[in-house]
């Protein structure tokens, strides 16, 4: 469904853009329908830059990104966002604090469904909230500060679902959530995956990637160092960097060696 081929991103840095920094270097991978691929890397590995390019928030310097065979830069923006949406790390800054949180739904209606009757729209919103397991009475007509991080994050996913999206870019969506609510958001993604949603799951937390994804891409300094089925990457990593990364993960039931 989504395919990246030789995608690179070079940023100009320095006072007059005299120097360049390569954030993403010839990255190629594919995500199919009903599949979660996790993009794992440390800070500065270029994982968020890839997400932003897929969402067309920044243009790629080289290479091509195609969605269902069509170059995403040639697609009409509004049509593209109907199918592809993103949810980001900080749910609190994704909302305008002076408006009620459910304004994100009415904004979708204004842009994409102006003709829909109020009654039909209410039902649609209720169905989307049902999908993310939120009680409409508990979340509608509330300000962002009255809701928890987990609720806000699920509202954003519900907003994406209103558009019948086929693909979601989830950039560190659970890193600001507590352990007890984090797993619910992940399970929600797993349910959506069953219904055919493709997900690019960007994370620095290897345990989460291991839990949710079919395939794993490990990035190091903008390059893919390892790419394959999740079990294989986690159980028999081939690249030295992946092995080092796995050895540094704090594990609940095993202590680090030599510490």
């Amino acid at each position, binding site marked *: 469904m989504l395919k990246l081929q030789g995608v690179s991103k070079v940023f100009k840095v320095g006072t007059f853009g005299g120097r360049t920094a390569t954030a993403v270097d010839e990255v190629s991978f594919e995500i199919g329908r009903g599949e979660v691929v996790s993009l794992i890397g*440390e*800070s500065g590995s270029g994982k968020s830059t890839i997400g932003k390019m897929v969402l067309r928030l920044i243009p790629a310097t080289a290479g091509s990104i195609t969605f269902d065979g069509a170059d995403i830069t040639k697609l009409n923006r509004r049509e593209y966002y109907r199918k592809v949406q993103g949810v980001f790390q900080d749910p609190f800054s994704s909302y305008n604090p002076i408006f009620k949180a459910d304004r994100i739904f009415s904004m979708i209606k204004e842009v994409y469904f102006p003709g829909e009757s109020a009654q039909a729209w209410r039902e649609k919103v209720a169905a989307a909230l049902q999908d993310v397991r939120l009680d409409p009475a508990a979340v509608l007509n509330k300000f962002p500060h009255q809701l*928890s991080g987990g609720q806000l994050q699920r509202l954003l996913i519900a907003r994406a679902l209103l558009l019948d999206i086929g693909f979601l870019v989830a950039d560190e969506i659970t890193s600001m959530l*507590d*352990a*007890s*609510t*984090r*797993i*619910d958001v*992940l*399970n929600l993604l*797993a349910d959506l995956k069953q219904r055919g949603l493709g997900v690019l799951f960007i994370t*620095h937390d*290897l*345990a*989460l990637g*291991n*839990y*949710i994804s079919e395939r794993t891409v490990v990035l190091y300094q903008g390059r893919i160092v390892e790419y394959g089925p999740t*079990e294989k990457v*986690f*159980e028999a990593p081939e690249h030295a960097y992946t092995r*080092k*990364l*796995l050895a*540094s*993960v*704090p*594990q*609940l*039931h*095993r*202590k*680090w060696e*030599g*510490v």
Partner: protein
Amino acid sequence: MTLSVQDLRVYYRTLRGEVKALDGVSFELADGEILGLAGESGCGKTTLGKSLIRMDGRMKHVGGRVELDGEELPIGDTVKMNPFRFTEVSIIPQYSMSAMNPTRKIGRMVRELLDSRGVTVDTEELHRRLDLVELDRDVLKRYPMELSGGMKQRMVMVISTLLNPSLLIADEITSALDVSTQKAVVTTLKGFRDLGFVKSMIFITHDISLTNQLADTIMVMYAGKLAEKAPSDAVVNRPRHPYTQLLISSLPEVGVRYADKKLTGIPGNPPSLLDPPVGCRFQDRCPLAFDKCREEPPVVEVEKDHYVACWKA
């Protein structure tokens, strides 16, 4: 016994009333012990750490008694705390990336800091400690902005422990770091303890897997109260409090296949600390809750060194 905390209560003043961030916590810390303080946002773990050094002016100290090395810590009095801060109790703050004065070269900043405590810099010792955390001695001639995040973190760790405090509080110091840097930081902290730079330590984090790598004892808090405290191994493998059990079972792990297994979270949210429920604070989310939970559960030693606050434990 390095530290003894009895019935510590800390309330914050807000426009809507008093937030009971810490509501009667007692524990002890032995010489050389590293205590891991774990819990979710708003459980009072940062408040506990900050109250022991009295770092926050909004804190209204309400009650409790804290003793460090047999001497009472005046945690209710900002001025009286001054002789203890940095020399006896020291903290590596959550924001250590921005904890250094940006307008001073680091060497000068350290000198000024020590002058303010009436101590002269032992340059040799400072160099020795920089070597230990693998920082180049030249960092002293640089400004904080010239250092990377990990380097700043290590520099702050060196500064905080320079006067060999009795108690070191490390507050979420690894949460902004990559996994490989996290491991290095934890190794260094353990080294500081083993070399006797600090006598005991409170390591605050929301990440139980990480705490387990470092701490001798883990204390789990929930909504301003102690839920469970036991040796790390017991908390991770044989938790007795329902909250700890649910929390630990909700953590995904590397090295486990989850193909058709699903983990579950804890339904609901922690209670508001403006007006917390009477009795056990976990009762609304607890699958085992029964009538008795409307009374406050006492902290009971169920096994040697294993303390739990639950009627069912």
